[in-house]
């Protein structure tokens, strides 16, 4: 398998993970009034998932350079 195909497949996987993280039902688990470090847990979940997706993309894309 060449570089193009494997990076493409990994990025598709990241896309699917993202779709899972940012949708019902996972999102609804964090839809509570709980706070963590003084920050609503939903905010923490949303932003950290967002960051994780970006980090995964950096790893996959930059690893080859």
């Amino acid at each position: 398998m060449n570089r193009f195909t494997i990076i493409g497949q990994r990025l598709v996987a990241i896309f699917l993970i993202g779709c899972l993280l940012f949708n019902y039902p996972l999102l609804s688990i964090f839809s509570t009034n709980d706070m963590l470090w003084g920050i609503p847990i939903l905010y923490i979940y949303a932003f950290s998932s967002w960051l994780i997706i970006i980090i995964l993309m950096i790893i996959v894309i930059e690893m080859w350079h």
Partner: protein
Amino acid sequence: MMLQGGIILLFSLAYIGFLFAIAYYSDKRSDAGRSVISNPYIYALSLAVYCTAWTFYGSVGRAASTGIGFMPIYLGPTLMVALWYLVMRKIIRISKINRITSIADFISSRYGKSSSLAGLVTIIAVVGIIPYISLQLDGVSTSFDVMWQHSELAGAIPPPGTAAILGDTSFYVALLLATFAIIFGTRHLDTTERHEGLVAAIAFESVIKLVAFLVVGVYVTFILFNGFGDIFGQAFQKPELRDLFTMKNAGTYTDWTWLMFLSMMAIMFLPRQFQMTVVENVNENHLDKASWLLPLYLLVINIFVLPIALGGLLLFPSGAVDADTFVLTIPISQGQEEVAMLAFIGGLSAATGMVIVATVSLSTMVSNELVMPLLLHFGPLRLSERRDLGGVLLTIRRCTIILVLMLGYCYFRLTGNAYTLVSIGLISFAAVAQFAPAIFGGIYWKTGNHLGAIVGLSAGFVVWTYTLFLPSLAESGYLSPSFIESGPFGITLLKPYALFGLAGLSPITHSLFWSMLVNAGGYMILSLVGQQSLMEHSQAAQFVDVYKRTQENDFRLWRSTSSVTVLRSILEQFLSRIRVDEALNDYAKKHGLDWSKDDVADAALINYAERLLAGSVGSASARVLLASAVKEEPVSMDEVMYMLDETSKVIAYSRELEIKSKELEQATSELRAANEQLKEVDRLKDDFISTVTHELRTPLTSIRAFSEILHDNPDLDVEQRSKFMAIILKENERLTRLINNVLDLSKIESGKMEWHLTAVDLKEVIEDALATLEQVIKEENIELETALAEHVSLTVTDRDRITQVMLNLLSNAIKFCDSQAGWIMVQLKEQDYTLSVAVSDNGPGIKPENQEIIFEKFRQVGDTLTEKPQGTGLGLPICRQIITYFGGDLRVNSIPGHGATFFFTLPVVSPTEAEADKEPNYASPIFANGKTNNR
């Protein structure tokens, strides 16, 4: 006082002046061949043109009422960008090869360079983007007013868009932005329609808006409040704000998902995004880094949205201040004029960036795909004969920019303040999402055709207009509100927000569902049903298989020749003479031509010229322009074959080759088998001949010997003489029999045997045969037992041949049965439409290993040294051939020492069963074997 009108204006103009400086500088650098924008960071920043006044002002407003409900608009692009490595790379590659100038050009080019489709896409783009432009006008003019009034209570300002036009800030904002866009985007025409200066300026704007927003965010979070925990903690104390911490106000999960989908489409297909991502792309590889830089940018610019929104709600609990202005009103209310000024500039940069790129891309579309084709089509203008059409093109573009901004302004006046910034923007998003089926289908599905694209897009656009655009006008009072409340003419099924009774969805989701349904559905169905023109077919192949493209793969869609002089004059209408010379000389150098000698422009050169021209006027116009000058000859079928995609041809060839080689292999192995068979037959023939000669020699020898005795001894006594004569006769008979047998066998084997078919009663045949041999049986003292069925069905066969078989079997039985107490038994039975005959004897029997050998020619069982051969060795083989011919079977059962039973079967076909013959599930083995009686 910092925030005086003059100062604000001064700052704005200084900022815009600075942008010009950047654009000018980078254009100069570009001309000098040292591009400043040719790196992935600038590319990623230019893509951040996605963040407009919507992001800068609107997100906070959205967050103030929905909590994280503003996020899908940024999460969608984050995820979509992950797929860009596959999808956008392909689009960019296609666009570079085809010199695509806009999204309309892209779609029309894919579907056969169709002018009508290009026009349709352009109209959808223009109408769709109008709300978006008005959003920017709204944002900028509101921010002007907020700053101008220098009031802590922004709500006290008369809402923009309600004053008289000449006293309306937004009108001047629109004019300012139009001027700005004209100066930036339409300075000159280029073959690639790329604007380096513009990109550099947009990238700079992206930095400014990010920094400005972060400054406001840090100020609100860490200076005004004591960090995130403080803001969220204070907000948590207020029950009315607590819902913002959950998904409660963020819309239903269905809406959430659709919004993500919507923004996924927007990041790709908004005309300005397409312009920045595809058209302005310098190097395909910049996409790699940009695919994580852009999401990172989106994440960073959104970090402080919630703190600012909640901070604003805590500071202005009365709701008197529009949450869309929090970014400005919070610093102003705290007397932080520098922060407010920076925020204002940030908002201005966000809005101007969007307006400039959007209008530039729209003006390219309108001029290339709408106005030019129309002008060129209408002959009376004789436009194609005019020189310097470039000037006309630029004028059209400038007018378009002004027109688009004025339309945006009108929409803004019409809708007034009925909507928040975000909900206006979403209307535009839903419009450009209509491009998705045609584009995705276009790059991955060769079957997608022009008709499907036209119908899908039109249907989607109509539904969008009906369910979103018209209601947005109705809500502002320009259409009767009853249009929304109870549907047009009171038809409730046609309520624009609950079409066909589909209620419970937000208007955006509702519209998106219906429009996507008719769009994608129409596109697919008509593509599956309809056909593609030749041009479409080759374009489809070129788009879908873009990665397989080879250098030779340039489609020879021009089957004609023209003169270089004519081509040159067409090109010079749009491009500078220097540029044309450069391009043609390049071409000449590459192909080893000399224009001073060669004036014949072949198909490849015309193709080259078309792409050159497409870079500045779009592919549809380029085609029309060249077609008017180059008389095309009709395309022949041979040419059609030639035009077919090189790669698909190669694939087809290799597939054919594969099939051919498989066939060849098979043929080879068949030939080998046939050869083996031939060799075997040849060997058998040799064996046969040598055996036959040997068999012939035996009787001949004895005939000759006895004849010689008779000849040499004329005085032999009569008794002796007649004895010798009898031997000679007997040997002669044997010889005759042998020759007859050989002839029979060769006739049967070569299929030359004449068969006389009649309905035969097997019982009669057996009885006849027994009668013939009755004398012999009696002489030999053999006990004959018969068990013949009373009545048996008739069988169609050759009576004489079956008699021959019967006689043969009986003679063998007589020959081989016990010499002292001989016993023979003959049986005849009928069962399952089969007649079977068995002839048994009580002879020595046949060893199992010999039971098949006896049916081979000249194979007699027994010790040939001690026993004299008792037959020709051909009887049984002939019998088997005869029986097999009639669809039966001849075999032997024997236990050595206990006699042998020869039995054969014959299928029943009698005239009485003729009707049964006609039944499809019954066929006699004779007929089933194809051995019919008409031979």
